[in-house]
Structure formats: C-alpha cells, structure tokens
C-alpha cells in the first residue's frame, strides 16, 4: 500500500465505522432533539467517508473492495470507532465523539497543506462540519458532568480513553507520510496536541483522565488490522445483506439527492 492510500484508508475507515455505530442510536436517543442531532453527525461522517473512499476510487479501487468485500482485518480504523454501545449508555457516544472529533480536527488541519492536492482540496469541507460535532459533544459533556451522571461520563472515559490512543497509532508508512509532506505533522506531535486540549478540558469538568503513559493499552490497535471482537460482529452485520443479495455492484445514487 502506498503512503497516500494508507493515509486515506485511515481517514475513510474511521469515519465510516464511527458513523455505522452512531446510527445505532437513531430512534433510541434520549430525546427527539438529541436523536436528530446525532443522526446529523452520523450522516456527516458517512459523507466524509464517502468523500475519502471516492478519492481511493479515483486511485483505482472500487466500492465493493473498499467496503463490502474487504476482509475485516484489512480495515484500518481506530478501535475507538468500532466499540459496541451498551444499551442506554448515552455517555459513551458523547465522550467518544469528543475524543474523536478533537483528534479529527487536528488531523485535518495537518492535511490542509498536504503535498497531495486531491487531499488538500477536500479537507475544507470536512473541517467545516467537524466544528459542529465538537460543540455538540462539549455541550453534552458539560451538562452530564454535573451531578449524578458524572460517574457515567467517567466510566465511559475510562473505558474509551485507551482505545482513543489508537487514533494516533502509526501505520507502516508513517515515516513517508510525513517526509513526503502528505501530512504536515507527525502522529506523535498530533497526539501531544490532543493531550494538551483534551486533558485540561476534561479535568475542568471534574473528570479524571487516565495517565497516558501508564494506562493499560488494549492489545489490538486497529491501525494494523487487529481489532476487538465488536468489530468482527459489526462487519458481519453490515455486509451480510450485501452478500445475500449478490448484486453485481453496490448501487450508486449520486445526483439523486442521496
């Protein structure tokens, strides 16, 4: 895989998988308004996934190999995106989205001046939508971090934080991605910046953030194709109808408002 492809797969797979999980909350969210808001975010993320997968298609891939017939161990998303939700655990999508979208902004900002023009030209649209996602997560975090619900937020943070670290796990081409200027910052530096933003903010809400260097990391890292069991279940559930139907091609509806 070329460095550009690796970079694109990380972007696209993160967005696709987290959106797939967010849609599980549709109809189940605590209120009608929160249902609509999270559905908006899910659709944005699917839209971003499509934008990056489209770019991979321009580079010779096909949708069926990008999503439907790709083996689950070939997906490169962070394990943060794939974890199953526990029923009723609304603190999870709130914390997950905060951790993810903060990292996402930093990553996209480091792509604005990418040496690959096809990437640089697409970043603006994605960045403009991510701001709303962060505001949404923060407004929920601030509300839920007061009173009795704080324990639930803390539990979600303890569970998700180690997985969020895999957002910054380098892939095999990390050195080339930086040296060729595809991304203008290393994952190590992005991670430091992410710590500088997320840790003080979460602490200001009265939450305690696990010590990054001491926290026990899951053995699976996502970026190398190793994933939690939740991912293999999810992959099976979103690809099974595709296989059952046996269509020649996944259907495109571009230009029809879809």
């Amino acid at each position: 895989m070329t460095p550009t492809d690796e970079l694109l797969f990380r972007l696209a797979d993160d967005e696709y998988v987290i959106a797939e999980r967010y849609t599980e909350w549709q109809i189940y969210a605590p209120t009608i308004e929160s249902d609509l808001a999270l559905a908006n975010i899910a659709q944005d993320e699917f839209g971003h996934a499509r934008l990056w997968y489209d770019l991979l298609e321009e580079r010779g891939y096909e949708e069926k190999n990008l999503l439907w017939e790709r083996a689950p161990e070939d997906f490169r998303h962070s394990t943060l995106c794939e974890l199953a939700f526990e029923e009723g655990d609304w603190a999870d999508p709130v914390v997950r989205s905060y951790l993810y979208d903060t990292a996402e902004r930093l990553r996209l900002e480091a792509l604005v001046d990418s040496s690959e023009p096809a990437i640089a030209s697409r970043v603006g649209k994605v960045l403009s939508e991510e701001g709303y996602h962060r505001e949404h997560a923060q407004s929920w975090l601030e509300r839920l971090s007061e009173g009795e619900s704080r324990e639930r937020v803390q539990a979600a943070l303890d569970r998700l934080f180690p997985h969020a670290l895999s957002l910054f796990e380098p892939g095999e081409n990390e050195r080339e991605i930086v040296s060729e200027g595809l991304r203008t910052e290393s994952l190590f530096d992005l991670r430091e910046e992410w710590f500088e933003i997320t840790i003080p903010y979460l602490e200001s809400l009265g939450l305690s953030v696990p010590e990054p260097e001491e926290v026990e990391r899951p053995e699976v890292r996502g970026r190398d194709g190793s994933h939690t069991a939740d991912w293999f279940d999810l992959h099976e559930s979103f690809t099974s109808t595709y296989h059952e139907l046996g269509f020649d091609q996944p259907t495109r509806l571009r230009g029809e408002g879809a």
Partner: protein
Amino acid sequence: MDLEELKERAGPRAFSPKDDLPEEYRKAATRMIQFHANSEVMGGYLDKQFTRQAPSLDRKLACTAKVQDEIGHAQLLYRAAETLGVKTREEMLEELERGEGKFLNCFHYPVDSWYEAPMIDFFVDGGAMRRQATLKATSWEPYAHAMDKVCFEEGFHVKHGEDILRELMGSSRANRERVQETFDEWWPRIVQFFGPPNKDSKHNDFAQQVGLKTTSNDELRQAFLNAYIPKAEKYGLELPDTPRIEYDEHSGRYELEYDDLDWEEFWTIAKNDYERSAEQIGSRRRRHEAVAWVRESMDAWETSQETPQAAD
C-alpha cells in the same frame, strides 16, 4: 365557537390556535395527529434496520436520512398536536411507551430482511403519501402546515423505496422470488393500511364533518390501488389470490372483497393487543427507559442553570 358553527366554517386550514374551539374538535384532532406522530416514531423503528442492512454506501446514507426525517416529522407533528392544548408531547410519548398510544397497523409487524425495505419504503410510504397529501387541506392549520414539509420529504422516501424494488426485481431469480414471498405476506396489511370500510370506521364521520379529514378511507384506498397495483405489476410482482381485488372496467374502480381480509387481526392491532405489537412497543419502552437517566440529568441541569435568575 360551538360545534354547529365549527362544522359550518370547517374548511382547509380554517382553524388555528387563535380560535376558541370546542373540546370535541380539539380531542378528535389530537387523537388524529398523535396517531400520525406515533406512526412516524414506530415506522422509524422498523426503518432503522435497513440502514445497517443497506447494500451500498449511497443506499445507507439514504436510509439513515430517512429515519432522521421520520423523527423530524414526529417532532413537527407532536408540536402540531400540542397546539390543541389537550396533551403535552411528554404525555404523548409516555402514552406510546405505556402501550396506550396508537399507530399504523403496518408498523406493528417486525421486519428483518432487506426484502421488506420496499414493502415499507415504497408501498406503505406510498400509501402514507396519499393520505398525507389530502391532509394539506385539513382544518387544523398547524397540522396542514406540518404536512407541507412532511409531504415534500416523503416524496424522496417513496422514490428511494421504488428504486430498491426496481433493483431487487431486476436482479437474480432467487431475489425476485424472495420479494414476491415478502409481498404476499405484506400486501393484505398494506390494503388494510387505509383502515376499515367506511361503514365500520368509528371516527370517519366526525373527522370529515369538522374538516380534519377531507377524504374517506375508501376513497384513499381506491386512489392507492389505482396507482400502486399497476406499479407492482410493472416491476413483475403478482397480486396474491386473497384478498380478491377485481378491476371494474365500467366504473374504473378496484372492487375489494373486504371479507377476505383479517379484520380480527386488524382490530386486535388497533388496540395494541397483537402479540407482536407488544414486542415492538415493549422494545421501544425498554430503550426509552434505558436513557431516562439522561432526561433526568438534563432536567436537573436546567434547574441548576435557572437558580441564579430565580434568586434575583
């Protein structure tokens, strides 16, 4: 205004929250709009499964957007119902949870396969479109206003549902057979979607007299059959033998043999007593209760934000 005067003045968008309306009207309108709003929620409940099953990224986006639209419609409709001053949205949602809220017959049947997507998204939604289009002329102005937006969006849903059907029926023989089997199962429910024959309808007369409904069940069903039987046939579906439906060349109408339909099941469903209704409603209640803690903490948070002002 009293009921007699109201009946005289009844017409499209004739009444708004500015009018002083008799309780019979406000209750009838609430019942009708609440039913509609509940149906959006419970329809979304079925539809959300198609998002996970969708066999392409574009289809998946269309499915998730549709579920979101349905919740948006529920939001609009509960608001339109609230303006009648009979029940709050919270009360209506609680009734739905307790199994007291009524909703469309088709949404009492669980779905589990993609072959059911066109049943819901094309036939049921197509039926809903017919009904909703006539409600743009309902006498309760906030309801009619909500219908403007709902109808616009439903147009896209039905188009997508039709495209799913077209795609399935143009694919392998095994797929076509599965769609036909699914259609055989769903068709009687879809025909019942428009409710009982006029003579058995409890609310039809009053609703029409006060302009809440502009078209009877039978007329709506007729319009639906006229439009959708040719479409089903165009894609290669065959109508099941029952219920018997004969086209009368003379009158240009489809004559339906009402007795071929299972009205006992229909009425059991209408009372939420059907076995599978309990599953659908119970599953929704479980989900709604699982996030009760969030609503409680939002209330607590809002109260804490208001306290300093209250002290002023």
